[in-house]
């Protein structure tokens, strides 16, 4: 069965992504800390995965045949929590417990506290290695649809661009290339910002495509806010048999809120505590939600 996507579903997912962005703003405000830019930039990717791409069961997060989604840059977890909640893993209102004492929604994700997270992450550069281990183990048990093995699922690893500064990550890129882990697909949130500034100023990453190709990966580049392109890229990766595939998803940090888009100062700050040169701090949360609701109206009318 093809997973290619039709027009009605795209509209449905765009509206879903908008609702998830609103939840992200609400949970960051409730927490009083956390990252704003990254989660908003990756919302369309997460929505496409949880509502169309992944073979998963929110009511049975440990289902052995589920696809594995590893989030390497754990600090953007608000988008994962919000998307999982909207997908039915837990009540959306629990999102408001983010970063609070006793919450399952830790500041950085912990596997043992919340089923469905797959790994514990935060320290950068370590997700791809774990994804490699899962993909390698699955292949040992038979990944191909014709086999009777229990490894018949795909492993996805979401990474940030900034974490490509870390040497550990390149060890994993080399490993996946050597062992031709074609059941593994990486996805890079290429939003060009990191904590101290633009990636190309802090530590240049380009030519990212050429680097991955030199490590024996298949490389795709997409608009990370275009649901159809996200879905199509994953479908192409499934057809690449000889190599692992990495999808470089070009995204806009802070996407959905024009006043903060592409502003690296919003990397690690919640609404209400961000730079006040455009919107006063006390107005930020209200303003952001207003922006998103306006966008919601636009999505509705565009597809009509």
């Amino acid at each position, binding site marked *: 069965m093809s997973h290619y996507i039709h027009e009605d579903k795209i509209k449905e997912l765009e509206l879903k992504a908008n609702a998830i962005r609103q939840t992200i703003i609400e949970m960051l405000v409730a927490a009083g800390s956390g990252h704003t830019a990254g989660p908003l930039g990756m919302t369309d990717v997460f929505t496409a995965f949880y509502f169309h791409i992944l073979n998963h069961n929110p009511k049975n997060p440990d289902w052995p045949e589920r696809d594995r989604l590893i989030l390497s840059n754990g600090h953007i977890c608000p988008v994962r929590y919000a998307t999982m909640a909207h997908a039915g893993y837990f009540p959306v209102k629990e999102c408001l417990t983010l970063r609070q004492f006793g919450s399952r929604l830790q500041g950085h994700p912990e596997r043992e506290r919340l089923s469905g997270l797959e790994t514990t992450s935060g320290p950068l550069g370590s997700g791809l*290695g774990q*994804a490699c281990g899962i993909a*390698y183990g699955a292949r040992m048990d038979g990944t191909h649809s014709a086999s009777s093995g229990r490894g018949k699922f795909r492993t996805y690893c979401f990474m940030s661009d900034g974490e490509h500064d870390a040497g550990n990550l390149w060890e994993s890129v080399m490993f996946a290339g050597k062992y031709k882990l074609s059941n593994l697909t990486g996805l890079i949130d290429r939003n060009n910002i990191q904590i101290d500034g633009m990636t190309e100023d802090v530590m240049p990453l380009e030519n990212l495509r050429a680097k991955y190709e030199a490590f024996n990966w298949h490389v795709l580049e997409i608009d990370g806010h275009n649901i159809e392109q996200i879905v199509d890229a994953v479908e192409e990766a499934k057809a690449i048999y000889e190599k692992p595939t990495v999808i470089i998803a070009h995204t806009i940090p802070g996407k959905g809120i024009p006043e903060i888009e592409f502003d690296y100062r919003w990397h690690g700050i919640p609404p209400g505590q961000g730079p006040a040169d455009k919107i006063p701090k006390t107005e930020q949360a209200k303003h952001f939600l207003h922006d998103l609701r306006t966008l919601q109206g636009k999505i509705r009318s565009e597809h009509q």
Partner: protein
Amino acid sequence: MKINLKNPELKPTRDGYGLGLVEAGEKDERVVVLCADLSESTRSQWFKDKFPDRFIQMGVAEQNMATVAAGLANYGKIPFISSYAAFSPGRNWEQIRTTIALNNVPVKIGGAHAGISVGPDGATHQQLEDIAIMRTMPNMVVLVPCDAIEAQKATVAAAFNNKPTYIRFGREKSPVFTTVETPFEIGRAEIFREGKDVSIITCGMLLYNALVAAEKLAQEGIDCEVINFHTIKPLDEKTITTSAKKTGAVVSVEEHQINGGLGSAIAETLARNYPAPQEFIGVQDRFGESGKLEELIEHFGLDANAIKQAVKKVLVRKNG
């Protein structure tokens, strides 16, 4: 308990790792072995020869080895990662902490060539801080087998304890003084020699030196209890306290920095339960250097003679 102190066979504890890997691999097909370009010297080659499809060559990439193993364990395998202790857990400690211990997946970390006894390779390769950095990590089990036979038992036991586990091995040949019948259970210390004057608490190959020192001291009328603490974590606190209550004085012996190792773990327990004078045999807050095994053991004060002196010193404090 049958302990062979006279002319024991000599074998490195890493041989026990190799044999244990093969034994565990025969028992359970989920066992896989990863190695960072040191297959022969860590003895993981022995597993590779027997189970080539379950051996994964990592190259010189210890950080990736830890994270790939975390993924394999997460999926359902029982991975052992093999390198020198200086690099694993020396170099990849953060990956072990986050992706194995906090993630709580049952990866087994085999650290070979630990201790001063690595010899000619010198300080860079003489890992003397591994017990300290591993025992402070929640969820982690820490094992330091005393000879090749115990190393094999520890490796097999670790394969099936379903917990993140560090096992420490040495490079050089050392006396094999236990037998296949000697009891071994993770978390339970074994009293190898009963005594009433001083408790010598030790782990690893220096246990042999401690037993030799105890024999010599017996001839001088000093009756030492010698305990094999192969498990540093979880620590058998009851055995420490019981022995200290009986003897009233403790000497800890380890091939490790005196800061943070077995001696420190014992001191923490005694301070909480039964304060008693303690002397620390170990490396005194300095790096190692090149030399032959025997030269280094004597130079760093880890030989039977040094243990004898420490016992006498602690006895003075106990009686003073």
